[in-house]
């Protein structure tokens, strides 16, 4: 038996610490895309203050879309499941928010910030919980029987979306429900010349929290490591002794919880909730994750921010073309990188 040479703490530290060779160059080009879009719009918009307002609105929308889409892309990356029923969780989040706001009218009708934020927080929590729980059921009943069969997945999850939307109508009724922003969150804050809507601030903050939490989980925990490895090569992860299938359910539920959160914020953003609300955002989500690269969280972020910005700029400059600008952007990205901005290798 060979005796391994005794390791000194410093030699191992040297290997594991910063003195090792610097990390290879990180692919920043797609990140710059966000800046490029923002800067390109500046002259087009003309006024700086308007541009600032639009940019912030775009970032806020981007954050909301990112929250809703992050689950979708992760679920696809890890489990190879494309969930066309993702819209159900989004809609649930929005609807639950209406219920929570209705129940906490005392908190939200007051102009002070603290009770309002508390109500918003409760709504978001409820949205996540409901999304997660329904997600668990969805995975069990609808998705699990068709693992590995893409065509059936598409069909079945669409069926699930139909059923989900109808059940929402059963519980909340088919009519649209207004979701007015609470007193304390209406209006804007002035940053220099630009008006920044208060709600948008909240959205950006929530988005950042989610982003940080996601990045931390994915990059600093072993579970995150398993997920990232599983996205690349599920079989090898199992060969290393991990029951990754058990992780699937958890990831799916987390993804649907995030969708619920996204739905809650989206509902507040739109200020009106209809049963089709999930479907309306769904197309945007698909565009975002295609741009970002299926399975990539960072790509999803960039895609969402870029789409958010684009939608707001074009919405200001030529409102009729917003949908087209998004699709045009998607096509342009695909021409540049056919698998999206940050393709996950080994797919």
């Amino acid at each position, binding site marked *: 038996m060979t005796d391994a040479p005794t390791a000194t703490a410093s030699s191992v530290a040297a290997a594991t610490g910063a003195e090792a060779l610097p990390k290879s160059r990180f692919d920043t080009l797609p990140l710059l895309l966000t800046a490029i879009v923002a800067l390109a719009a500046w002259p087009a918009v003309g006024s700086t203050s308007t541009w600032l307002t639009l940019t912030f609105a775009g970032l806020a929308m981007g954050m909301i879309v990112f929250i809703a889409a992050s689950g979708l892309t992760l679920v696809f990356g890890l489990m190879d499941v494309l969930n066309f029923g993702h819209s159900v969780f989004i809609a649930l989040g929005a609807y639950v928010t209406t219920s929570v706001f209705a129940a906490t009218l005392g908190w939200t009708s007051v102009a002070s910030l603290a009770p309002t934020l508390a109500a918003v927080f409760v709504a978001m929590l409820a949205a996540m919980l409901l999304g997660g729980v329904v997600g668990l059921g969805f995975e069990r009943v609808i998705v699990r029987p068709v693992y590995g069969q*893409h065509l*059936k997945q598409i*069909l079945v999850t*669409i069926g699930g979306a139909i059923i989900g939307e*109808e059940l929402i109508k059963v519980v909340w009724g*088919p009519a649209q429900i207004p979701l007015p922003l609470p007193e304390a969150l209406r209006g804007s804050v002035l940053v220099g010349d630009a008006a920044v809507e208060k709600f948008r601030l909240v959205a950006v903050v929530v988005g950042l929290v989610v982003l940080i939490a996601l990045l931390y989980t994915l990059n600093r925990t072993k579970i995150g490591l398993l997920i990232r490895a599983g996205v690349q090569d599920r079989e090898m992860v199992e060969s290393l002794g991990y029951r990754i299938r058990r992780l699937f359910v958890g990831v799916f539920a987390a993804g649907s919880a995030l969708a619920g959160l996204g739905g809650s914020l989206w509902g507040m953003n739109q200020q009106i909730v209809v049963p089709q609300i999930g*479907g309306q955002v769904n197309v945007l989500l698909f565009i975002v994750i295609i741009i970002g690269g299926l399975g990539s969280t960072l790509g999803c972020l960039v895609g969402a921010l870029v789409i958010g910005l684009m939608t707001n700029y074009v919405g200001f400059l030529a409102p009729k073309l917003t*949908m087209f600008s998004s*699709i045009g952007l*998607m096509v342009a990205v695909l021409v540049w990188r056919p698998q999206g901005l940050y393709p996950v290798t080994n797919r």
Partner: protein
Amino acid sequence: MLLDRLFSHDRPRNRWLAVVLVAIVVALALTPFIFPGTKALNVAAKVIVFIVLAASFDLLLGYTGIVSFAHTMFFGIGAYGIAIASTRIGPTWAAMALGALAALLLSAVLSLLIGLFSLRVKAIFFAMITLAVASAFATLASQLSDFTGGEDGLTFKVPEALRPGTEYAAEPFLGASIDGRFVTYYLIFVVALLLVLALLRIVNSPFGRVLQAIRENDFRAEAIGYRTVVYRTIASVASALFATLAGVLLALWLRYNGPDTTLSFEIMLDVLLIVVIGGMGTMYGAVVGSVLLVLAQNYLQDVMKIAASAVQDVPLLAQVVSPDRWLLWLGILFVLSVYYFPSGVVGRLRAMRRN
């Protein structure tokens, strides 16, 4: 046998299915006489149009194995072609022909582009992209109001011969009033019949067999020497053209077209439901499925009303069987079909024969 050749040797292969199909064809052929009233005629016309639309989708999904959500786009193009031609040029046969031709051309070009694009990306990607494209097209249609009538759509006139006001006989014949509607109905019926037979011919031709081989295993098909690119593209274009013609028929019947009539995602879902519940890759599934869906859409609600009144005091339950929630039950049926009847009603019936 002439009948065999007419159906391109693709027989129903099951007594019940044959009976059902014959019943459907006869019922549709004689609707003006058997089922009085405008509602019945409207329902029948809708069934006919959806049969063609679903059959064209089956060519794409069931036979070629391509999942595309952009199918309603071509449906809409056909309908708008007629609508715009009539509005801009005038309600003449020449204008109709021009509109239809222009629509077919546009559909051909678009489906060619989409078809070629589908081959460069993976199936899942493609499905999502077609969803986005269809969405964009619907938005476009509702925004180009000068051209398409926007959200409100276009109401237009059809050629004199087809107008409801045009009377061919003073007295009703065997219960049916012989007017422009009558003629339109039979025009649609005959054209649809021809289109379905044509589709049967296509899927049972050597071309169709190659499509099925590609659907099963495109690697092997390519290895044997078939240029899958070519076949898939042709199938995409053919499917789009048939859908366009279905749109033409619909427009002639409704004398109206708007974004919601042909381009909405609901229609896409309906087609999906029809093909899956009816049976993918069978063509006859489109027939059976269309009848089921359209009848359900129009008459199931009446049935559910009865059930609803029985449980109207039970809070949530009342909502669940409320006739407005018929789509819920259809959705459940759809999901169950995908799991337990992957080959649909037609497939099930055919499988019964072997037992």
